[in-house]
């Protein structure tokens, strides 16, 4: 149990006060997010964005940079013993940081345009 829940110590407190409150706070937000994510997928826009990102990252050399970093990680951990978790923990933060600004801006712009068209408030 999370420490937060200790504030509402009795079972009835939790069910009568905490969960409904949480549901109300989360509801509108998460509903809207869920609806937008669903629209992104259904209209194929998420797939298109993924492909666009992949193409741009290959073009700007991000992929090769990160692959070189992977080689270092593998040489460090040993070829036989490297696991997916090792790679993910070492590579993902660096990957996120290495995305060039132009690529990031373009993607954000496209997502904003999609939301402006399809988000209902």
């Amino acid at each position, binding site marked *: 149990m999370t420490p937060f829940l200790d504030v509402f110590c009795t079972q009835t407190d939790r069910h009568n006060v905490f969960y409904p409150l949480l549901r109300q706070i989360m509801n509108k937000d998460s509903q809207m997010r869920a609806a937008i994510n669903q629209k992104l997928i259904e209209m194929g826009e998420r797939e298109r964005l993924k492909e666009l990102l*992949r193409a741009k990252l290959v073009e700007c050399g991000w992929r090769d940079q*990160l692959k070189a970093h992977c080689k270092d990680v593998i040489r460090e951990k040993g*070829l036989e013993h490297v696991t997916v978790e090792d790679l993910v923990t070492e590579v993902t933060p660096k990957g996120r940081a290495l995305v060039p600004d132009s690529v990031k801006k373009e993607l954000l712009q496209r997502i904003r345009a999609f939301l402006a068209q399809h988000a209902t408030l």
Partner: protein
Amino acid sequence: MKMEDMPLSGPDNTKLEALVHDIYSELVEDACLGLCFEVHRAVKQGYFFLDETDQESMKEFEIVDQPGVDIFGQVYNQWKNKECECPNCKRLIAASRFAPHLEKCLGMGRNSSRIANRRLASNNNMSKSESDQEDNDDLNDNDWSYGAEKKAKKRKSDKVFLHFKQLSFIHLSLQIFLFIHFSCGENVDH
């Protein structure tokens, strides 16, 4: 700056802006994970460091482009005109005709009327036919293997008959024993 480049403003729009950034982060993370999986597979399958092979090995495995030879440098039609000895009939057969010849010779291929050959073979040798799945299928398929079917059936009924004989012997002897036991018992004074 164009209008669409500016982040959205306003209270609801800060939420939207946060959502935009979240969607972007998800996409970037997908790309990173994709790379990790690809690299991990390459490591485990052993082709990750292939681009770092030395020049010598690279030369050894270069694509060959000469006439009469395939890309690996092997001659690919040197067995065309050879002859092989059939292990069954001891004749010399051309290599390209060898497989069909073996089918007919050994009686094992799809079109070799193997049932006829089997019957001939079994009549010659007077041995029991094997109960292969293949054989049974053949027997079921053809009308003129009636003789073989009848033989199999008869043998089966022979077995049944034998057991019956044994049972009736036991039954008979039991009856006799009981008859003697009870008839003698009547005469005995307790």
